[in-house]
């Protein structure tokens, strides 16, 4: 922008010239420096005021809700709120204290109260998160306690079920007696706490999340690479064709981009089913027999194919806009200096496309890592990503703290990538067709 057209320029031209002290003054006699500061402050404020309504809107409808949700990953008062006496006992007595008579009395009292208030199921559910198989312990004890528990409490409760004497159970209840816990994060990386409260690996048959994070990461990499493989030639073709023809072909890229995600996913379901179009064509061509139809959907293959298709435009568009700006004379110069076309491409052309490639790859990867709809519909059980596990904990097992912990880890990963993207590419350079 030209200096003379700066908003402050008007003030300068109106300035009354240097006074005795040598400071420049404006027409109304204020020191110029001060006037400039004020004017620029006003301009800043005006610009900020334009953005403020939206910023508040996003903060309220987006940032606060996510923060509120993440809070659940460390907070769960299912036990502490409904078993107040026992929780109080845990706070008064340090770890390692054998449960004494007061503890058993508190347990009996809380069990009775929770059974009456119909919150015993909630308590059981909370403990069951940390120690599977204990939910029933609480609900059945609650059912028995409703008719009253007589002292001596320890014997009475142990008679209901010997499991009440398990030190692991008491250790877990101690953990849960505080509404705040890091256990959900531990569980999200397949760790758990033993009787002493030390962190150990979860039993092999319950390890799942690390595997899913790895799978999400790996599948996203594969999908990113596939979009590169398919997107690069297309972007190159579009960038080297004359504008008129490339605009026409560009529509073929933009149409999928504008088409409903659900429509595209449905289309792939129709195409890839065992009795679907692709299998029909392959059978008709004689490539495979009618009873050897390929399983291309409800597994990882389905997820990869459909997501590559859906994310391809996000790779093509940034690549295209970078390739458009590459001057063809460099390649020609390389050729004239004796490079083969492969060398010219590898040494001259390809390095110049790297900014577009980086932008596209990062964007595709970021979007792929958090994908939900497509894997849910075409992924079967082997093509599910971490988002699907979050959704499952949200809507099926209702272990919301677990969902929040997994979401926090996923969000942290995405934000790091987003930061890298902003550093390398700049959010301003995000383009949509």
């Amino acid at each position, binding site marked *: 922008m030209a200096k003379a057209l700066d908003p402050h320029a008007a003030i300068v031209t109106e300035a009354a010239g240097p006074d005795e002290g040598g400071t420049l003054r404006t027409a109304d006699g204020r020191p110029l420096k001060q006037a400039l500061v004020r004017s620029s402050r006003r*301009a800043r404020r005006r610009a900020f005021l*334009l953005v403020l309504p939206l*910023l508040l809107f996003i903060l309220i409808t*987006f940032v606060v809700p996510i*923060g509120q949700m993440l809070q659940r990953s460390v907070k769960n008062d299912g036990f502490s709120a409904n078993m107040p006496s026992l929780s109080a006992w845990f706070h008064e007595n340090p770890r390692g204290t054998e449960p004494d008579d007061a503890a058993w009395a508190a347990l009996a009292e809380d069990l009775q109260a929770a059974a009456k208030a119909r919150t015993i199921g909630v308590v059981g559910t909370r403990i069951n998160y940390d120690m599977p198989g204990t939910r029933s312990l609480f609900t059945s004890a609650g059912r028995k306690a409703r008719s009253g528990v007589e002292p001596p409490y320890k014997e009475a409760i142990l008679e209901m079920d010997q499991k009440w004497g398990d030190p692991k159970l008491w250790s877990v209840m101690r953990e849960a007696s505080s509404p705040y816990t890091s256990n959900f994060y531990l569980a999200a990386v397949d760790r758990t706490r033993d009787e002493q409260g030390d962190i150990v690996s979860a039993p092999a048959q319950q390890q799942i999340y690390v595997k899913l994070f790895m799978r999400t990461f790996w599948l996203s990499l594969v999908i990113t690479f596939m979009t590169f493989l398919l997107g690069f030639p297309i972007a190159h073709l579009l960038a080297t064709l004359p*504008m008129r023809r490339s605009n026409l072909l560009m529509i073929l890229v933009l149409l999928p981009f504008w*088409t409903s995600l659900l429509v595209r996913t449905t289309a792939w379901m129709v195409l890839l089913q065992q009795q679907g179009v692709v299998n029909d064509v392959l059978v008709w061509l004689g490539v495979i027999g009618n009873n050897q139809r390929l399983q291309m959907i409800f597994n990882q293959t389905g997820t990869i194919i459909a997501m590559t298709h859906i994310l391809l435009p996000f790779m093509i568009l940034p690549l295209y806009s970078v390739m458009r700006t590459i001057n063809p004379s460099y390649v*020609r110069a390389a050729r004239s200096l004796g490079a083969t076309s492969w060398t010219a491409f590898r040494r001259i052309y390809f390095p110049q496309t790297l900014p577009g490639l980086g932008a596209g790859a990062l964007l595709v990867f970021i979007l792929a890592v958090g994908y939900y709809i497509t894997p849910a519909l075409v992924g079967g059980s082997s093509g599910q990503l971490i988002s699907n596990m979050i959704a499952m904990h949200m809507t099926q097992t209702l272990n919301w703290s677990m969902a929040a912990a997994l979401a926090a880890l996923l969000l942290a990963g995405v934000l790091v990538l987003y930061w890298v993207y902003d550093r390398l590419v700049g959010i301003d350079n995000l383009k949509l067709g």
Partner: protein
Amino acid sequence: MALPTYASPLEKIWHYAYLVICAAIFFFLIAPIVVVIPLSFNAEPYFTFTDKMLSFDPDGYSLRWYDSLLTFGMARPDAPRDLSWWADAWHNAKWVNAAKSSIIIGVFSTLIATVLGTLAALGLSRPEMPWRRAIMAILISPMIVPIIITATGMFFFYSNPCEPLSWLGLNPECGRLAGTYLGVILAHATLGIPFVIITVTATLIGFDQSLNRAAASLGANPRTTFFRITMPLILPGVISGALFAFVTSFDEVVAVLFIAGPDQQTIPRQMWNGIREQISPAILAVATLLVIFSIALLTTVELLRRRSERLRGLTPR
């Protein structure tokens, strides 16, 4: 891209192979979208081409799935098709109601996103905007943060929007936004905002600020300047942004699944149920209509983009 005259035979072969590869990739991009169109006219409830369809027998084709879009959910679908039949369809047909919900939600969320987003884009493109990068990053983030995380957060917040106030020691009682049109509209506005910001700021990059100053120096007040000078120039970008926001809302299903109630049964939600339950070709009929809709939108956006480039003197060589 013409082949240079000095190309060797091998390069010529490679060149044609390259064109074939490109054609195949274009086919991969377009085929899935195109294939649903003929299949939606299938007379049979299958998702593949029947022999009759392949031999272009008119019996193999029918409009029954389009018809079922109207009759599904109607109280008396078999009644004679007079005025009361159409009234029945208008009030009771599930897909018709879904379209109504989608349009209401889409229009209002687009309005919010476009107004707030355009204002913010104007501020963001001023050179004196403070903390520009950080604020931009926050405003774009709804597009980057995985939708399942956003929807989960909204699920809790919209169930009890006053809960965050309890952090400040306040405890006001207020209703809920989940299960209301307003809730879904706000959610969709949030998701549409990044698209408005991106398209409008892109338009403003080529915007010559001296035009505004020229208007001001000729005595126009800021309002007049905005409506007579800035607005007409950035309008194509604003409309594209609005269309993007509308499409985002029109296609959004995850947030709807988490926060909508029985009344906000949108088209994508109806489709989602349909796909998970029974993908009858009725889904393909909807898909076809949506493809036609997106072609129309794409055409509009392309025309707008060219107009905008011409207005800003950016016409490509």
